[in-house]
């Protein structure tokens, strides 16, 4: 890649697809975790979308697990979706113990992308099929032991779902 303005994999407006070139894979690109979480901090939830089979993948990655294609592009995701399954973590890992019990769910966004996250509601208030909206929290406002973070994770936001 010699012309940054032409970079296909870091610009959601650009629909050029194909295998990522080595020089596309930098911490500025949402195809890497630092780039994905930087965008999330700024309010953009970016998935990889397979242009062959339309699988949406969070976080973005360089190849599609649905069909094997590397013809992936970035796609900004809707924040809303529905609960596919849910439970409560009654005895969480030690770094999360202040949050117990933690309601967690697998959510399918309206784009079809699926991800796991905490739900900001008691277990009894949640059902399969409930509509939820993804919110992004500054890590300092979530009561997780800072020692849990790896050095490169310290600034990464934490996502949580709210019932709609």
């Amino acid at each position: 890649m010699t012309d940054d303005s032409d970079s296909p994999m870091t610009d959601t407006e650009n629909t050029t697809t194909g295998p990522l070139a080595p020089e596309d894979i930098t911490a500025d690109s949402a195809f890497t975790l630092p780039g994905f979480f930087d965008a999330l901090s700024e309010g953009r939830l970016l998935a990889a979308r397979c242009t062959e089979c339309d699988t949406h993948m969070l976080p973005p990655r360089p190849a599609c697990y649905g069909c094997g294609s590397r013809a992936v592009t970035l796609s900004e995701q809707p924040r809303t979706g529905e609960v596919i399954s849910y439970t409560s973590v009654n005895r969480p890992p030690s770094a999360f113990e202040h949050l117990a019990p933690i309601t967690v769910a697998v959510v399918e966004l309206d784009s079809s992308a699926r991800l796991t996250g905490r739900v900001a509601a008691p277990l009894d208030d949640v059902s399969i099929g409930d509509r939820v909206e993804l919110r992004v929290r500054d890590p300092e406002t979530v009561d997780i032991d800072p020692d849990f973070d790896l050095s490169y994770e310290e600034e990464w936001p934490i996502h949580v779902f709210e019932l709609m």
Partner: protein
Amino acid sequence: MSTAHLIAVGSSPLGKTDLPGRDLFSKALAEAFEDLPDPADVVDALYVGAQSERYENQIMQGTLMAEWAGLRNVPAERVEACAAAGALALKNAVRDVRAGVHDAVLACGVEKMTAGGTEGATNALGAAFERALEQRSGITAPATYALLARRYLHETDATERDLGRIAVKNHGNAAANPRAMFQQAVDIETVMDAPEVAPPLKLYDCAPVTDGAAAIVVANDEVAADLQGRPDTIRVAGVGSAANNLAVAERDLTFVEGANVAASTAYEDAGVGAADIDVAEVHDAFTVCEALLAEAAEFAPKGRGIETVEVPGDRSAGWTDVQINTSGGLKARGHPIGATGLLQAVEAYEQLTGRAGERQVADADTALLINEGGVADAHTVATVLTAQ
């Protein structure tokens, strides 16, 4: 291609023990080689399944186990796929023997899970989940399997009580297994009244934290024939494995597709079908897994895996006559992560050689093992074994 035979098996006591990992391995090795020459005179290489170095702050398990077996300057490798590590060690040993790379290989597994208490085990097992989105949401092993269970109960007619009956069945089987961690039956009311761990899963839906080790000698035709005193070896007829996605959110929650691929591959390799399997050890880390794996192995129609608890005559149409988890399964035999896949093979060895005592299944001559790692389906190894 040579045939791979399991010519000797051993296991350590299972449960919370006073022995560190290497000493648990010594116990398993001593049993496996009770009637055999020194390991150095039998095997040419070693694979060891070990989930985590967090328990004992020790990697290099391949070198350590080889040393404890008296093997020096031979290939000796640790393999890792969370709870599928044990079957992965067996698979690699079988591959080497079949390919003629080695005449005989020691497959073993070890885990000292109680070293850091429940918190240590929770944190060590947590490393098996996808880091960026799932670990950072505070999930645990029971919670991820509860996500499967909740959806299974939603999509099928199964109830929490049906899941509980799987635990009751497996405790009943373990009561007849001298190797088992919990050699006592439990009743359904005890199971249903137990504390919730991650709803709908309660305490008895969950396999225990277990210390333990297992060791199995895998050998080619010549070595198997040469060794006296072990006429009742069993044959590895087929092997399959598959990795599905790491994030549980990105998988079908009620169809463990990777396990279906692994089992189908193993059946094809062995030239058998699901209906040919007499006994199966499937990975019931949580009760719902036994139901899901009965379906993935094509023993049961979709949504009816919970009938694993019924005697064959009482099962729905479309079910085979297989007997599942005669050992007591992970739930009651115990689940020392890296050793579990090999403990499944120990049960198959005992069933196929007529050594299973009170829990012997009559005329058992073909077995399937399914060992999984990383929230059900992230990695699966399936193995078909036959009596000689």
